[in-house]
């Protein structure tokens, strides 16, 4: 791996990220008020995933990490999603 000089992220970037995160939280709380049926969970999870992606790439600096780490992180999420889906092969088709 290259011996890079550490990237330094400026304070304003972090502040913007926080604002986005808080805004998403507000949306997600507000959305519970509306009865969207089955879509509520989907929406809540979608918003949570966006938040998580933001935290990982900005706060945890995944953006500036090696390609290997990026692949590994996505791989971990992929495996976990697959495990859930495959478990539901049992529960949904019973």
């Amino acid at each position: 791996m290259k011996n890079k000089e550490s990237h330094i992220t400026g304070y304003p970037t972090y502040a913007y990220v926080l604002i986005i995160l808080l805004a998403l939280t507000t949306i997600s709380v507000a959305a519970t008020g509306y009865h969207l049926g089955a879509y509520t969970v989907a929406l809540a999870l979608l918003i949570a995933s966006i938040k998580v992606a933001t935290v990982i790439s900005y706060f945890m600096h995944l953006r500036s990490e090696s390609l290997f780490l990026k692949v590994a992180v996505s791989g971990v999420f992929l495996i976990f999603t697959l495990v859930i889906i495959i478990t539901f092969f049992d529960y949904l088709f019973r």
Partner: protein
Amino acid sequence: MTDHTVHTEHFDKEAGKLGMWIFLFTEMFLFGGLFLVYAVMRAQYSEDFHTAAEELNTFIGTMNTVFLLTSSMTVAMSITAIQRNERRLALFLVSLTLLLAMLFMVDKYFEWSHEFEYGVYPGSDVLKNMPHGELLFFGLYFMMTGLHALHVFVGMILLTINFIRIRKGSINQENFLLLENSGLYWHLVDLIWIFLFPLLYLVS
């Protein structure tokens, strides 16, 4: 402690960080198991989960989300501060993070004691007389938030160590791996909460 008097290895920062990331993967799967149980239970008892979730206080949950998100930002900023050799600012940011963590725990404390007052705690009679789905919901609730609170606690210890070492100067512009890794850990605690919050407080 070691008998390696002739150790010639240079200090490998990348290795430390990589190790931390991989450790975080295992943490994700640790909670992942609980999320899987949650998903299956919820698919079977969605009605009960709904009624049980109504009893949780969304306000407290939301406040805690705000605390954690903000603390995530402050800890990330503290790394920038160290990188720019602004030690005072870094100390301030780390203590701010600790303060927010404290607030989170206090909130949690009130929430749990409120539930205990109503006789809702693991193994209680009130719980046993609830419909199965609600019982499961609360079981999961205590297990998930309990394990999460334990992680917050560990994170606080780490942050305190960082605080001391920044003051002593052993964490500095050249060497701040511990702070970076603690930051990563702290973000993970945040990540998990980001999922816990809608799943436990916002089910409808």
